[in-house]
């Protein structure tokens, strides 16, 4: 079961995709990889890159400040600014 990924900042929706297989985020305690079925968690973000994989394609976007919430196989990333 793929993960739903939603990345927004205060201006617009950056990513909204329901078929993400894997996602990597620059969490406060280090880079964190998320696969489907990950435990629910909340974390702040460090500056870095959010990487995500859809099928065999890797994409990435920059992240500066914000936080991540994961529950129900949905990653919500809220970036500031």
């Amino acid at each position, binding site marked *: 079961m793929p993960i739903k990924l939603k990345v*927004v900042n205060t201006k617009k929706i950056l990513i909204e995709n329901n078929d993400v297989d894997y996602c990597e985020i620059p969490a406060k305690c280090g880079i964190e990889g998320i696969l489907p079925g990950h435990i629910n968690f909340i974390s702040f973000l460090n500056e870095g890159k959010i990487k995500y994989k859809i099928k065999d394609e890797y994409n990435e976007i920059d992240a500066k400040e914000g936080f991540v919430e994961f529950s129900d196989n949905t990653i919500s990333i809220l970036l500031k600014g």
Partner: protein
Amino acid sequence: MANLKSIKRKIASVKNTRQITKAMKMVAGAKLKKAQLAMNEFKPYATAYEQVVVNMTNNILLRDSSFFQIREKVNNVGFIVITSDRGLCGAFNVNIFKELLDNIKRRNLENNNINLYIVGKKGADFFKRHGYRINFNSGTSVKKEESSITEKLSKIVAEDFINGKIDELNIISSRYFSPVNQKPDCKKIFPFEKTTENVNVEDYVIEPDSNDEEVLSTIFNDYIKVEIDIRLFESNAGEQASRMNAMDNATRNAGKLINKLTLSFNKARQTAVTLEILDLVNGANALK
């Protein structure tokens, strides 16, 4: 004839008013577009934030946080009221006042149990005049990029709630649905509702785990800020839309009034002409 002159003067003044209201409508229209844009930009963020907070509130483990404390007896109720700075926007502000007053009446609140946090000059004026206690008065509701109203306000309400100065926090503002449809709405923010359905009993990992209380309070504090922000945007758009409609009506009414006055002006002139001719004819007849 004096009557003729006075009607003429009236027409001129109504025409002037029409021009002003027309200009104000145009200005409001331009501002509305801008306000709508700002609102639509921010909306996805606010919606996503709201969803995250709902997810979090469904989790039992987080309910130790002070924002979930349901007080046994709700004595002091806080209201954040978002109004406009300027008038001439139809029933925009009045609807918001009514919503608050209805709320107070429905819940039988005593005057000294009500804590008002007011954004916007009109609201501050109204509630001051009616003798309510105002805990916070922003003075202005215009949202500027660097404005720190929301920051200040969200900090104050969060502190007041945690310190027990207020047992419940509501926010009353006008929600924007379309340029012709804005509705005042009251939403309870604190304490968070504990939903019984869909309760997520799974664990939440909070990182960094050394101070989860701090992580949570930062997220919840930010939530108030986002909630106030989106409502400020909506209220601003609603105000402009409401003003545009009000000014449109005023322009139309002025047009109608001008038509009426022109008619009576023509009638009066005709009467005057007829009278003069009568005079002349009478004079000529007398000479025969």
